[in-house]
């Protein structure tokens, strides 16, 4: 395939993104069933979300509230009156064989959001709409090689996910980023994640499918100028990691460029993304697309949020992530790079809580971005999943600041905390990890080390201060590391002066 650079020489890419967010409501969109991820298959179902004959939906007010808050955070207008529709098509994981979804009357329209790029610049992305819908069940295709339906001997369906509230956020075509389109796609999704997290409306875990992305890509020839219409687009479905979003867009740009340069045309179609091989393959073409026969859902009444309610929700929106980041960077004295790394590591909230518990910002950042990041990586966990709280990290840093443990001991204290042995203080006591601060005991150990290494001691006496390291090491070893190395050095030099 042709290179990205070559593709860009001839074409300008235009992207659009459709992001599905599973809302973190306690119950489903239209029934009272729980939404816990990972529950036993078909254990969170009822007549309504199984679509049993006679069952009826009832709107989850919390889901509507979340959808409105998302709309407001994206600068959208909130509809004063809107409805759900039925999207009719047959599929085994859809209990009613129609999806209850908003169609031509979305709850939020016409917004925009400023996306911060890795280099600190911003790109404005316009939002077409955000609408509510229910999720489908999940099919597991058994017996095939790929887990896809092709070649499978049978399929299992789990309806736990059926009826979980979704908000779909659709951008307008993003024109302008040009060669940066793949990075903008990624940055936009990352930005949405951060925004949704700040709103507290979803856990936005892409690996668990609570945030799913479809990426639209089209190309138009550079020779045509900026006024020409957009090219035919493809829609790559279910691109479910930030890295994949960028890769999939980049791949699709190259693939389409190659087709066009060879004199071919792009088919309007959905495409599947293959994480392993990094390519997309054709899905359904426009001609094959189903006629969904949308019509207003007669089992639900219209959604008509009052102006007062919407205004209340607007007033209580959290600080926008961009502003918040800038404020915290100022308060903490972080450089741009430090801030970006903190956000990138998903440690912003953790550092904030640690600072709130009394730790110095730089110390808090160091704990979370080095030692704790290393341990999270080793354990295959998110930082927030480590069994240590920001409060405990602040307490540990307090022990370091008070000189009660040194860095080596502090790491051992952390081992204890992560092993569930209690608070840092409790681990220090239980494991006997406190530094020896009794000068008499330290002096005794120093004298012993001098006696054991007379040749080294002689060198130090002759003025070779650097040689004192061996003596300090011997003392630390004798005290099993439980000493303040700086104080030991002082004592060694004092005895040998």
């Amino acid at each position, binding site marked *: 395939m042709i290179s990205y650079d070559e593709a860009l020489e001839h074409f300008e890419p235009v992207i659009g993104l459709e992001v599905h967010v599973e809302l973190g409501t306690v119950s489903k969109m239209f029934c009272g069933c729980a939404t816990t991820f990972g529950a036993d298959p078909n254990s969170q179902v009822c007549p309504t979300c199984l*679509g049993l*004959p*006679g069952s009826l939906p*009832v709107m989850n007010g919390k889901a509507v509230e979340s959808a409105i808050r998302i709309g407001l955070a994206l600068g959208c207008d909130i509809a004063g009156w809107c409805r759900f529709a039925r999207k009719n098509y047959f599929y085994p994981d859809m209990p009613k064989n129609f999806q209850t979804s908003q169609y031509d009357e979305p709850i939020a329209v016409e917004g925009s959001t400023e996306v911060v790029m890795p280099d600190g610049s911003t790109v404005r992305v316009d939002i077409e709409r955000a609408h509510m819908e229910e999720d489908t069940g999940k099919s597991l295709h058994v017996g095939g090689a790929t887990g896809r339906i092709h070649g499978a001997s049978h399929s299992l369906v789990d309806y736990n996910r059926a009826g979980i509230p979704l908000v779909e956020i659709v951008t307008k075509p993003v024109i302008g980023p040009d060669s940066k389109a793949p990075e903008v796609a990624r940055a936009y999704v990352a930005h949405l994640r951060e925004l949704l997290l700040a709103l507290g409306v979803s856990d936005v875990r892409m690996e668990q499918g609570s945030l799913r992305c479809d990426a639209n890509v089209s190309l138009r020839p550079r020779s045509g100028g900026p006024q020409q219409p957009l090219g035919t687009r493809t829609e790559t479905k279910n691109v479910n990691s930030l890295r994949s979003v960028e890769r999939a867009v980049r791949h699709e740009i190259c693939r389409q460029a190659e087709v066009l340069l060879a004199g071919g045309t792009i088919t309007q179609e959905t495409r599947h993304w293959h994480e392993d091989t990094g390519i997309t393959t054709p899905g359904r073409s426009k001609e094959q697309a189903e*006629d969904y026969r949308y*019509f207003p859902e007669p089992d639900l009444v219209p959604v008509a949020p009052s102006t007062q309610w919407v205004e209340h929700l607007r007033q209580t929106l959290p600080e926008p992530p961009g502003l918040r980041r800038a404020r915290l960077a100022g308060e903490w004295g972080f450089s741009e790079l430090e801030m970006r790394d903190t956000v990138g590591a998903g440690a912003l909230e953790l550092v904030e809580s640690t600072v709130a518990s009394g730790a110095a910002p730089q110390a808090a950042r160091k704990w979370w971005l080095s030692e704790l990041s290393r341990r999270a990586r080793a354990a295959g966990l998110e930082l927030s999943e480590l069994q240590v709280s920001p409060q405990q990290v602040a307490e540990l840093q307090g022990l370091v600041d008070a000189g009660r443990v040194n860095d080596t001991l502090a790491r051992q204290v952390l081992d204890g905390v992560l092993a569930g042995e209690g608070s840092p203080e409790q681990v220090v006591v239980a494991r006997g990890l406190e530094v020896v601060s009794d000068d008499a005991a330290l002096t005794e150990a120093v004298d012993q080390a001098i006696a054991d290494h007379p040749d080294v001691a002689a060198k130090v006496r002759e003025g070779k201060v650097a040689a004192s390291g061996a003596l300090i090491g011997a003392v630390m070893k004798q005290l099993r590391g439980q000493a303040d190395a700086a104080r030991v050095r002082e004592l060694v030099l004092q005895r040998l002066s």
Partner: protein
Amino acid sequence: MSDDLLRLSGAALAERLAAGDTSSVEATQAHLDQIAAVDGDVHAFLHVDAEGALAQAADVDRRRASGATLHRLAGVPIAVKDVVATAGLPTTAGSRLLAGWVPPYDATLITRLRAAGLPILGKTNMDEFAMGSSTEHSAFGPSHNPWDLDRTPGGSGGGSAAAVAAFEAPLAIGTDTGGSIRQPAAVTGTVGVKPTYGGVSRYGLIALASSLDQAGPVTRTVLDAAMLHELIGGHDPLDSTSIDAPVPALVDAVRDADVRGVRVGVVRELGGEGYQPGVRSRFDEAVGLLADAGAEVVEVSCPHFDYALAAYYLILPSEASSNLARFDAMRYGLRVVPETGAAGGVPSAEDVMLATRAAGFGAEAKRRIILGTYALSSGYYDAYYGSAQKVRTLISRDFEQAFTRVDVLVSPTAPTTAFRLGEKLDDPLAMYLNDVATIPANLAGVPGLSLPSGLAEEDGLPTALQVLAPATADDRLYRVGGALETMLLDRWGGPLLDRAPALTAQPQQVPA
């Protein structure tokens, strides 16, 4: 004694129970015996639950003996149309697709019946998924009209109406999407009420057309209908379209029935051509009685009613095509697995869906699914579904305007008396015309009550009149219906059903 119990109205039976003159077990058993005796001919029931009904009856008797406060209808047995979900009792909606399906949950109205202590005798026959006006579209064979077993008891709720007319049950539940309570009531000489849309919870009714469906009472007297209506009506948080307001005082409206000063509008468009002479003459007489009793009778025009049938047959199939999509063999009900798939080899889920739906739905259901699928298709939506919704709005406006001039509207319930089995089966349009007078109320969501108006002179079969009132003013149906019923009973010298031929007991068929 037993025959005496059978002929009592629900309210009269309730009084005997309260007075300790009979027990619920005795009354329930009497009705079960009647079902055993006559249902071989009438075929009102698809499933009889003797054990469950008697257990409920015994429980009510026990509670009554212990001095507990009971609902006024406690212990009065009831039959339920098979479109209503009943936990532990088969619920088929008259379709092969649901043969043997037992719901794991109760419809809200069933929860209310059970809580009030009404023994459920069984589930009554109906046209498949409530599509029809004769019960001939039931997958389990038609019901027969107790007035003439060669005729249909109407539909779709012919089973409930026939059960009540054949004294197999004093009370029954029906559902009315375009007349399925009122038209069967009309042709069997019984009383049927379609409440205001949203007046009775739809939770647990297997949906035909969600924006039109409404459950209601099927009884032999207006008072019984009021009592049952008050019991099953009222707000239900499980139905978003349920009205969040108290049910009007319906029983009081019957007891205080008086039409003096009531403005009664005769709908010009619902009468005349296409209406059987006997239906018209009995209707005119009944209207005359109302006028004699002090009602102000005027003629009212509702010009858009002429388009009601056409709009209805676009809206109903559209919603039905979507509501019936869930019957796909994946989770419950009939499953037909073809030997090979469309593409050869092992059949796919889609192959199974196709084969099941092809085998499971009857001709009328298929006809309406195809109609609805077409009406909602892109490119046709505006012309069909969209236009039909506009007509619907115009019909609602006709009602609104009429109700600025009158308190209630009246018309014949059905254009003809009961027709013969098979007479209209091959002519869907003729079948659809049975509901021409009942459909406008469903489209506008207003309530309607049908009560017997007499017997047509040409065939001696029951005719009926319907009363229509503004939405949420269901009490007006009962005020006018109750008053008219009293005057008609006076004129007839007793219930119309006393004139129905006696059904002869048939020996029970013992399955081989």
